């Protein structure tokens, strides 16, 4: 296990072994985080690879004000959200419509084995505002602490708690419909 400071130093020297360590450390958690935003495996794979490449090429911009983990997650989150925005433009759909389109595709996705309630949950998540959706996913599925989410999304813990509470209420009411 390499200490974070040493790893960052080696990454700044463009050490490819250090890059491999970085990928191995974060690949699974980051993949599932991105996957929950873009839903489809192939898209998640593209976004994940681009995220790691951006991290490696812009590591000089990492000042150490936050943890490396938070910084990587922030880049991954931005990449995934940008990906959806570009996709909505390409398809000529609004953001709400593209989210609905992505969820509808899940039913035919070989890498989605969700049952009825899991699919309904995805439909409920697609209707949430971006921030509420992210907070719910990170808290409920990824079991992150509010402090960690706060560092990634650059939002106060109070604001995150409010977003999470609203998300839960909306999901609850959608599932009861």
């Amino acid at each position: 296990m390499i200490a974070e400071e040493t790893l960052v130093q080696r990454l700044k020297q463009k050490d490819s072994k250090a890059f491999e360590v970085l990928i191995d450390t974060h690949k699974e958690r980051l993949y599932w985080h991105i996957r929950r935003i873009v839903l489809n495996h192939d898209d998640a794979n593209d976004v994940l690879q681009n995220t790691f490449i951006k991290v490696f090429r812009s590591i000089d911009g990492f000042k150490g004000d936050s943890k490396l983990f938070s910084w990587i997650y922030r880049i991954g989150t931005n990449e995934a959200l940008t990906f959806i925005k570009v996709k909505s433009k390409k398809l000529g759909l609004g953001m709400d419509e593209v989210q609905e389109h992505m969820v509808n595709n899940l039913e035919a996705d070989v890498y989605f084995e969700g049952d009825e309630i899991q699919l309904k949950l995805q439909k409920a998540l697609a209707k949430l505002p971006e921030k509420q959706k992210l907070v719910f996913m990170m808290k409920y599925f990824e079991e992150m602490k509010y402090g960690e989410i706060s560092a990634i999304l650059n939002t106060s813990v109070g604001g995150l708690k409010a977003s999470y509470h609203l998300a839960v209420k909306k999901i609850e009411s959608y599932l009861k419909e």
Partner: protein
Amino acid sequence: MGKISKKEGFKIPEGYFEGLSEEIMSKLDAGSLDLPKSDGFTAPDGYFDSLGKEVLAKEQTDEIRVIRLKPYKKLFFAAASVAAAVVLIFGWQWQSSQSVDFGDIASGELQAYFEDNSTGLTSYEIAEVLPIEDLELDDILESNLNDENIVDYLEATIEDIDELNLNNDD
């Protein structure tokens, strides 16, 4: 009343109060949702095993532009990049074809053009690759704006032009 015991006979499970606040907090967090913790997504077998090598190979061959994180420049670059893109794209078309004049194109058509011909790049990404430092306002506008035009425009669009405190020296 003095002969009745103050004890009510109620009992509580051992250690009840110790975990109570935690239990309430977790209920508050999740509301009354009864959801599965798994979301149903799966990944192909062995996907994570080969991922590291795949990313390294892509990093060495791919020409992905790195976006520097300078949010304070974002708005400036976005606005300038749209203007620069208009100049570059329509300037080229204008020179190559005399039949269509820039003035013939309605702003709605311009908007539709950009919506239908998405480059796949965000304005931030376009801003990163377009050299905007050498651009002047005159490169974008067909004719120079004089003071009279500006005052006419302000009169037509601003509710109370006096609030702008304009004087002849400005």
